[in-house]
């Protein structure tokens, strides 16, 4: 029986934990697979800023993709105002620049930076330019390498419309001023000190057609260090070391603090309701239980109304230096309020089921109410108290609605795991969300395993006390409390 009790939750927990880990791996798999498809001659850096192409003596570095330009009026160094026109920032002076218009990709190869080999073959530009292109001829290999490099870097920079998916023809030029159909591009323009732009001129519809601008520097491949993204287990390691673990600590800190409050207040409330008159008891009972029934958002709303500064009471608190809303104590308060009823209900149920004759007998022996509470009620109801504590802890750990309402989402302060999970997923960071799912499942598994282990142990030593006659347990529980299970195990354990 005992073996089953311990074994079963463990097996179930392992299954859950395995499932969760499998989920995390499945999320990582596409990344790994993408990186593993390394048959292509292109090597992309993990940060997406540089890339090298096998066999090409040049490599791209300092890549950036500007998705939107600006028409801003600029104040120049001499105090003059200038509006050079619609412009996109580029990565640096003398950068290779690709203007993606509606019909072609206009690539500017600055003569100074590109040490491209000159071939006699002039088939460099496939579009129909209004102006004769003056770009040095590129060999087929160089064109392929350059296209692949740009497309690779662009694809890594944005999963939205990518250069590759557009499939536009490439037009190469090395002229700083280049006209392609209605669009005039002024490359390598310094508008403000130290920052370079490509300035575009043309009709509104011509400018509208421009989708984005890629830019990067071309340097000798030997000088560019391309650190590719880690693959396989290394990718998992890199991910794990990059996860912000603060939500875990906030969650543990918050639910443990709440647990202390819940434990003390829950026991006292359970005792209090036992001793009060019937009608008042019904009132107190529903008051203490209602947070369990109410949606957590309602609790949160009520707490916000009470403690927020939109009510006289909240303002009075604020004047007296107690600011609760959006602080860590508010997170503890929210967790306490929603976790409390679980402790209260469980403990009160246990207290009620105790034999009243025991207490009457204890009183005849001259025991005070507090002695009875501490030495008789608590030990007898201990398994239920432990169960209530664990339930309340689990509830506090999982608290979301009320916490979000009163404590908000401040990383490292009030951002607990459930809140981090929600915001990570909604922020597009599904991988971190899955990580937190795995963490919560593992914590829950450990907690459940602990209860079961503890229950099987505590029941072993409680059994004689519970199965005794009415008179016998009067002394026995007191003894068993004094001789805690640890003490009992001590002789044979050490």
């Amino acid at each position: 029986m005992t073996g089953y009790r311990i074994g079963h939750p463990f097996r179930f927990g392992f299954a859950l934990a395995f499932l969760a880990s499998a989920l995390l791996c499945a999320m990582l798999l596409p990344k790994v697979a993408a990186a593993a498809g390394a048959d292509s001659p292109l090597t992309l850096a993990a940060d997406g800023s540089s890339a090298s192409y096998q066999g090409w003596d040049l490599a791209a570095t300092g890549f950036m993709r500007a998705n939107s330009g600006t028409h801003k009026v600029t104040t120049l160094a001499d105090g003059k105002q200038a509006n050079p026109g619609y412009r996109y920032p580029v990565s640096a002076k003398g950068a290779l620049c690709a203007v993606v218009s509606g019909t072609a990709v206009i690539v500017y190869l600055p003569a100074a930076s590109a040490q491209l080999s000159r071939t006699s073959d002039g088939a460099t530009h496939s579009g129909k330019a209004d102006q004769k292109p003056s770009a040095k001829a590129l060999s087929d290999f160089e064109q392929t390498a350059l296209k692949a490099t740009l497309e690779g870097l662009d694809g890594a920079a944005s999963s939205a419309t990518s250069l590759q998916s557009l499939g536009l023809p490439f037009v190469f030029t090395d002229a700083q001023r280049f006209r392609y159909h209605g669009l005039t591009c002024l490359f390598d323009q310094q508008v403000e000190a130290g920052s370079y732009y490509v300035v575009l001129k043309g009709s509104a519809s011509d400018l509208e057609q421009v989708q984005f601008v890629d830019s990067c520097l071309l340097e000798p491949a030997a000088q560019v260090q391309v650190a590719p993204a880690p693959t396989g287990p290394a990718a998992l390691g890199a991910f794990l070391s990059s996860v912000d673990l603060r939500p875990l600590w906030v969650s543990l800190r918050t639910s443990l603090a709440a647990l202390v409050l819940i434990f003390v207040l829950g026991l006292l409330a359970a005792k209090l309701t036992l001793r009060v008159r019937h009608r008042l008891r019904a009132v107190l009972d529903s008051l203490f239980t209602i947070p369990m029934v109410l949606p957590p958002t309602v609790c949160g709303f009520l707490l916000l109304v009470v403690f927020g500064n939109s009510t006289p009471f909240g303002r009075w608190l604020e004047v007296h230096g107690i600011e609760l809303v959006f602080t860590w104590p508010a997170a503890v308060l929210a967790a306490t309020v929603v976790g409390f009823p679980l402790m209260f209900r469980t403990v009160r149920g246990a207290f009620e089921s105790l034999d009243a004759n025991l207490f009457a007998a204890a009183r005849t022996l001259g025991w005070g109410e507090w002695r009875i509470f501490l030495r008789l009620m608590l030990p007898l109801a201990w398994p239920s108290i432990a169960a209530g504590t664990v339930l309340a802890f689990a509830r506090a750990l999982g608290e979301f609605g009320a916490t979000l309402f009163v404590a908000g989402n401040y990383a490292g302060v009030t951002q607990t795991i459930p809140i981090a999970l929600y915001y990570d997923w909604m922020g597009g960071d599904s991988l971190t969300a899955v990580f937190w799912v795995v963490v919560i499942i593992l914590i829950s598994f450990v907690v459940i395993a602990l209860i079961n282990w503890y229950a099987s142990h505590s029941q072993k030593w409680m059994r004689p006390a519970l199965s005794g006659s009415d008179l016998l347990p009067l002394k026995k529980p007191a003894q068993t409390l004094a001789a805690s299970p640890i003490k009992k195990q001590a002789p044979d354990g050490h």
Partner: protein
Amino acid sequence: MSKSMRRSAFGIVLAALLAFSLCFLSACGSSSSSSDNAATPTSTTPGTIQIFAANSLQKALPLVQALYTQQHPDVKFADTQFKGSGDLVSELQGGAKADLLICASESSMDTANTNGSIEANTRKDMFTNDLVIAEKTGAGYKINSLKDVESAKYAKIAIGQGAAVPAGAYANQALNTIGLYSAADGKTGSYSADFASKVVQDSSVGNVAQHVQSGDCQIGFVYTSDIYRYPGIQVAYKVPANTHKAIVYPGAVCTGSVNAQASQDFLNFCLTNAQAQKIWSEYGFAVK
């Protein structure tokens, strides 16, 4: 069972409550002093700027903040809150403290101004943005006009909640021009009967993007900038600018900020610094 006993029990409960609330408060004090860069968010802390920013800035703004701290090591940032502009304005009214507010619409900032949450003379228009209909990458929906959103192809359409999410309000304004939404302001109306059952109302524009990305909704109304910050979505249709109010992001220093000057400096940095501008343009924000 005696009265005195009951009274003493009650007294102990009270005493315990009191003791714990004291522990509580002292714990709060110590936790805020021990936290490093994540300063206590309630009162604005000297030297630590707390920003409340529109959800659409979630990826770009932290990069600009990092750039700013690099150049100004004495300035720290608290954990920036990225939510729907309407939520941020409500939170400020509800007692949350911040130094800088950046909204995604003029009307949200107007509300903050009416509430007395911002210093009106510090208000500045920061960025412009465009409204687009997003689809999952590769979905290939052909949307040629706004009217096409009524098509049966789109069983679920994600739109930000008009009252709290500016992107939703702009979308509703556009939908109002083709009779699918009842109020021209995009906030106070309701969707037409057939259309309403398709609309999934989200609490931030990021949620809209995520619902489209995950495939739970076929299309959604987001900003162009969201296309660049969310993997897996693309533009299906650019909503004509004349169907909704101009999309402008105003920023302003909050009332009662102890970092008013530092916040103002950061605001100016965002608009004038060339490096910052690179980041904005990377994420699709045009600096105004």
